[in-house]
């Protein structure tokens, strides 16, 4: 069972990962976007960690809806509403249970990812964060490690794609050959699940 603390560790591990990898995310965004994805994600997850420390929400669902709301209020750009919606909808789908199973999380995250697809209008293969999130959700019920690997593979698989959504789409053919920054950050988010599940706990938790 995954308790509230696990979800706090997940967010903390994501914050740490995003902080560590911010320059790489920004460099990826410089190549096919506007060079802000790293600082966007860092700003957002720093705010999430701060508010989770202050407000100490009592359920897994409350952790994620609060995190999502703060991403929306602090990130901006395309990634703010999209990641915000992802966590908020996942949190809502979890309801107010004090603990959830990995299966329940997989299902809830599926609902969150579907909400992202609806909001942004993107599909698999459009070279967006969805290309890391969709394969991860499919295997999440099996294990967090499999999900991490699937997200990473999905992110890497965006390299040869031509972008059809977001800022990278303006580049047309020239977007080919670069990894999508949002897919790369989604792989960090998914990877942080495995970290949070380790006995030592994730990130600075």
């Amino acid at each position, binding site marked *: 069972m995954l308790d509230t603390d696990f979800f706090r560790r997940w967010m903390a591990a994501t914050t740490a990962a995003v902080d560590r990898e911010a320059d790489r995310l*920004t*460099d990826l965004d*410089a*190549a*096919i*976007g*506007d*060079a*802000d994805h*790293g*600082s*966007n994600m860092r*700003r957002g997850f720093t705010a999430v960690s701060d508010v989770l420390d202050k407000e100490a929400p009592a359920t897994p669902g409350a952790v994620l809806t609060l995190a999502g709301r703060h991403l*929306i*209020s*602090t*990130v*901006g*750009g*395309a*990634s*703010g*509403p*999209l990641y915000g919606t992802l966590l908020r909808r996942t949190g809502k789908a979890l309801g107010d249970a004090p603990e959830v199973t990995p299966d329940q999380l997989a299902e809830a995250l599926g609902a969150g990812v579907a909400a992202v697809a609806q*909001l*942004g209008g993107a599909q698999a293969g459009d070279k967006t964060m969805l290309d890391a999130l969709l394969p991860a959700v499919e295997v999440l019920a099996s294990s967090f490690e499999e999900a991490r690997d699937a997200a990473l593979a999905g992110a890497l698989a965006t390299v040869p794609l*031509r972008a*059809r*959504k*977001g*800022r990278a*789409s*303006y*580049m*047309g053919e*020239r977007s080919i050959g670069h990894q999508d920054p949002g897919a790369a950050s989604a792989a960090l988010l998914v990877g942080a699940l495995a970290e949070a599940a380790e006995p030592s706990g994730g990130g600075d938790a």
Partner: protein
Amino acid sequence: MLINVPETVVADGLRGMAAAHPELVVDAENRLVVRRDAPVAGKVGLVSGGGSGHEPLHAGFVGPGMLSAACPGEVFTSPVPDQMVRAAAAVDSGAGVLFIVKNYTGDVLNFDMAAELAEDEGVQVAKVLVDDDVAVADSTFTAGRRGTGATLFVEKLAGALADEGAPLERVESMARRVNESSRSFGVALSSVTTPAKGTPTFDLPPGELELGIGIHGEPGRERRPMMTSGEIADVAVHAVLEDLRPTGPVLVLVNGMGATPLLELYGFNAEVQRVLAERGVSVARTLVGSYVTSLDMAGCSVTLCQVDEEMVRLWDAPVQTPALRWGR
């Protein structure tokens, strides 16, 4: 870069703007610039916003005859819904609020969320998307054309109409008409350096240029060896005219991207006017300056907007903002 630390660039800029413009309410904490006399009784409110780094767009266009409020985001990052919701509340007199949104995924999503929230709070909100950049194919393979120079025309003309007391739907339809009548094309002679990254977003060796760039340091669609100002005017104006095909007079915006000297920009304007004359397009009004910028990028863009008499009248109407000021 003339900054303290990247994290405070936007807040520092707003504090400095507050000191220079006592005629505006500049809320550096909540990232809001509002006309001091808002809400104006009976007047539709105009709210725009977007990433910072394009100054004077948008905050420099706040004031009588143009925007009621602007929401500056982080550098090149669209603002968050909280800002637009707060702005809408500050400028709504009961006559409703128009959101003017440049067509970027981030701006669209954040303004959409804000519109929902503001309507929940009882503000009537209309939205208009600005998407004038012909360098981007408007197809299912892209996020649609970007919003660039036409934003200035939309904000000026819709702002003038709102100042005359027109109701929300007329202001909205004018804004839409201005956008549909406008097209832009931009060229970069250098890359841009954002405070967060600290090095140029893309490599552009001296002696080369990028055609069809946006205002966020996204690389363009094509790279070429350096061209003369006349050749660049040929490419830019032809690209715009191919898409716009005006049948009447146009407003012309010859816009600098930030680091282009005004002397060069005026020289470029001479070439733009030459191409328009060659193509038989008559010019109603011309504005030359760095208005929709991309930090320290060198380069320029051309925006044309086909106008009728009403639109020329709205263009000539008084405006009192930091960046545009005439009449009365």
